[in-house]
């Protein structure tokens, strides 16, 4: 039996990126994956299909809104939705991408092993093929766990794939639900809620917290909530879901909840439970291998991503930190580099976070509230997209850019954006912060005109009250 330098369990963004980087660095690498395609949750049923649906549903919503279309000079007549065609298009987008990743990985000389992997003790990974064939044992000098996460199931709202669904199902419905109730106002709930609202559902978002988009700047969240409200989403905040009364004959299922002892009921064709994800640690053989979990059920790792078991590493959603694909990717690169004897590292303070609604919320670093909580003296610069030329010319004047800077050193501590395509703008903020940039540096960086990114520049200037296009 060949011994691999590195065997990776899970071919999501963390795992497959680690595999490619390891192969680049000359490590003999195997990648174990139970799905028939690589890319994990993100590419197959997560980030990518949801982005495809957001794009396709926005196109439909635009032409379906007769008034908006007419104002743009588009005459429409009896616009209707072909959901099957839309889903086919989405599947083609996803299919092309996962195929490309498969090619990349294989051309790098990574050995892809199909099946469900688990720790087999003695530096072995046991792979059980999905087709029921014989188990394969892979010997490894190092093992990387990258199995990601799965949707959290509520005990009183078990997924049945029909009425109670997870994000895995919500990206592949064959019918537009008349009434969709979304439990959880995080990124997944808001994005998929937006998709189905655009395609015609009456969407109600029920959230236990008194706000949406937890973790984002409060001002960003407030404006996003108002904006989504205008798009037809109804928010029921500070409401605790208590259960579901199943559908009976012609009567729809009813989700029950309570707020301040007041009972709430929401009739629903479908209930999307998007209250979070939990690390996929089950059936990995962690306990026998001596891999310990922390209080949140995440795998404990040290600064080099090594678990409590020697030679076994873990990254991404399995370990502490935000469950984001790009965080897992960077960790995958770092582990590969560390194993190759190089100084791999990830700056966990600079992981950007995005909600891909319209407008998009994008954020990195400390919020104003978090900075003040830390006792930091901060200065804030804000600039509205309403005063940005490109935003006006694009019909995307909603939102603003907000820069949080240290009052003394002017160093950028956080950037919070709400607006069209701000997921692309946030990268600039991350780059400035990576190099220790100040708000002044951001403000003195030349931006193409007209672009949405100028709003970020102006927000940088606004920290010292010197924004050009604002009073």
């Amino acid at each position, binding site marked *: 039996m060949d011994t691999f330098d590195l065997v990776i369990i899970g071919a999501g963004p963390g795992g497959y990126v680690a595999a490619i980087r390891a192969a680049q660095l000359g490590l003999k690498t195997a990648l174990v994956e139970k799905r028939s395609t690589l890319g994990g949750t993100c590419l197959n049923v997560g980030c990518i299909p949801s982005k495809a649906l957001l794009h396709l549903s926005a196109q439909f919503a635009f032409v379906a809104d007769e008034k908006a279309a007419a104002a743009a000079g588009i005459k429409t007549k009896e616009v209707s939705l072909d959901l099957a065609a839309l889903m086919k298009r989405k599947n083609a987008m996803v299919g092309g991408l996962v195929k490309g990743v498969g090619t990349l990985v294989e051309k790098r000389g990574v050995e892809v092993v199909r099946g469900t992997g688990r720790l087999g003790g003695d530096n072995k990974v046991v792979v059980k093929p999905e087709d029921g064939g014989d188990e394969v044992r892979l010997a490894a000098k190092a093992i990387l766990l990258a199995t990601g996460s799965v949707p959290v199931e509520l005990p009183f709202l078990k997924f049945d794939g029909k009425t109670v669904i997870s994000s895995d199902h919500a990206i592949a419905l064959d019918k537009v639900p008349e009434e969709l109730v979304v439990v959880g106002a995080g990124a997944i709930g808001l994005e998929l809620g937006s998709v189905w609202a655009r395609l015609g559902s009456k969407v109600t978002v029920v959230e236990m917290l008194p706000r949406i988009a937890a973790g984002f700047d409060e001002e960003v969240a407030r404006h996003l909530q108002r904006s989504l409200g205008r798009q037809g989403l109804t928010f029921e905040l500070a409401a605790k879901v208590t259960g579901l009364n199943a559908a009976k004959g012609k009567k729809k299922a009813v989700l029950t909840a309570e707020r301040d002892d007041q009972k709430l009921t929401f009739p629903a064709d479908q209930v999307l439970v998007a209250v979070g994800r939990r690390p996929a640690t089950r059936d990995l053989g962690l306990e026998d291998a001596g891999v310990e979990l922390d209080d949140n059920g995440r795998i404990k790792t040290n600064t080099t991503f090594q678990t409590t078991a020697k030679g076994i590493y873990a990254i991404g959603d399995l370990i502490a930190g935000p469950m984001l694909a790009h965080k897992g990717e960077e960790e995958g690169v770092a582990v590969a580099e560390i194993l190759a004897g190089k100084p791999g590292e990830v700056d966990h303070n600079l992981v950007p976070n995005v909600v891909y609604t319209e407008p998009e919320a994008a954020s990195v670093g400390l919020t104003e509230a978090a900075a003040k909580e830390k006792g930091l003296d901060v200065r804030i610069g804000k600039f509205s997209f309403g005063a940005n030329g490109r935003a006006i010319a694009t019909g995307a004047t909603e939102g603003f850019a907000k820069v949080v800077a240290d009052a003394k*050193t*002017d*160093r950028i501590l956080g950037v919070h954006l709400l607006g069209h395509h701000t997921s692309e703008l946030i990268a600039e903020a991350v780059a400035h912060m*990576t*190099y*220790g*940039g*100040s708000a002044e*540096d951001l403000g003195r*960086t030349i931006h193409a005109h007209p672009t949405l990114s100028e709003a970020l520049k102006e927000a940088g200037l606004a920290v010292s009250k010197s924004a050009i296009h604002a009073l």
Partner: protein
Amino acid sequence: MAIEVKVPSLGESISSGILASWKVKDGDAIDRDQVLYELETDKITSEGIAESAGTISLKVEEGAEVEVGQVVAVIDPDGNGKADSSSARAKDKKMDGEDDKSKASSKSEDEEPSDSSDKKSTDEEKPSSRHKSSDTSESAEPSGATDQATALPPSVRRLAAESGVDPSSVEGSGKGGRVTKGDMLAAIEKQEKAEEDEKSRSREKQAADKDDAPASERDAPKPSQAPADERESRRKLSPLRQKVAQRLVSSQQQMATLTTFNEVDMTAVRTLRARHQEDFTARHGIKLGFMSFFIKAVVQALQAVPALNARIEGDTLVEQRYYDIGVAVSTDRGLMVPVVRDCDQLSFAAIEERLAAFAKKAREGKITLDDLQGGVFTISNGGVFGSLLSTPIINPPQSGILGMHTIQDRPVAVDGKVEIRPMMYLALTYDHRLVDGREAVTFLGHVKRAVEDPARLLFGL
């Protein structure tokens, strides 16, 4: 094809130097073998020579620290003087159908006017005023920051221009040691505080000096802008002096130095010199000095006490089996220590010849780096300036230095009688990390005995 001007190898222990001054200006047309720049290391100043004719473009600023092998300029052999104007003209001519040859001959015509105007601006424009130069419309340079400066964030460039704090002197906290705005603000604050302190000191002094202090106090200009005070003047240390300072301090800090003393009766050397000087000069064409006696005595002492002919490299002891002795000479540029090689194999005459050659080279400023490399031990003669006694500082990585001093007639006890003898104090500073006190004292005793009775040198005693 462009030719890179690189910092040449400066010898084994030197990996970097300071580009002290450019002798040409960016865009100048230069000739082969023209002097391009002056390079200073902690040991020597040397000149960089053009390997090819062409148009030069400078890649580093004056005063920059440069590494061996670093490209400091690029020469374009096809270049045609000042890039902007004349190359454009050359292009025009080419379009008119003129060949390369006529282009070359047009070079000198093109250059003359631009050359003189360039010179004027060079003289007036100090490198540090670069950022301000955008105000003066005459500057031919593109406005804003170029080359190295682009590596700095705009906020840092602005603060550098406003405050005069050099970002390269600030320790960076950003990624890869980059200087951030916060680092600059802290450095400026520190500088301002230092200036403030100095100001208050000078105020106190003024108050003490004068009665009408309160009136003049408010008008006291900032020290940096102050006209030269009559009581003191300020000028920046030359890079060479800064390096010397650094080395001396690091020698003191990194070694466990200790100095031991003895004295030597110079009667025998005097007598020998007096008796044989005429023949020696006639035979060898050079005078017999004191130094050759001491060098020979030191070689013999090193052979007797090898601990002093060794150095420490990290955790390794390196014992040397050769006798390259450095002799400190004072020059206009400061102290230099050329090395006389293989002194164990040299005659007195050969040593005197080498010393005379170094003295001449030093006067002419032509001592090369090779001349300064690799000594195992140094002799410093403070006696030429009249020093009676001193504790010399070791030249790392050597382990010892012998200090010679002035010869003074002193009463000494000889065979129970008081006699007047020409006496010299000797000092040996040694690195106590690898030389024991016993060895140091023994070494100095060997030197003393050999000088007092040079016949011992003859017999290897």
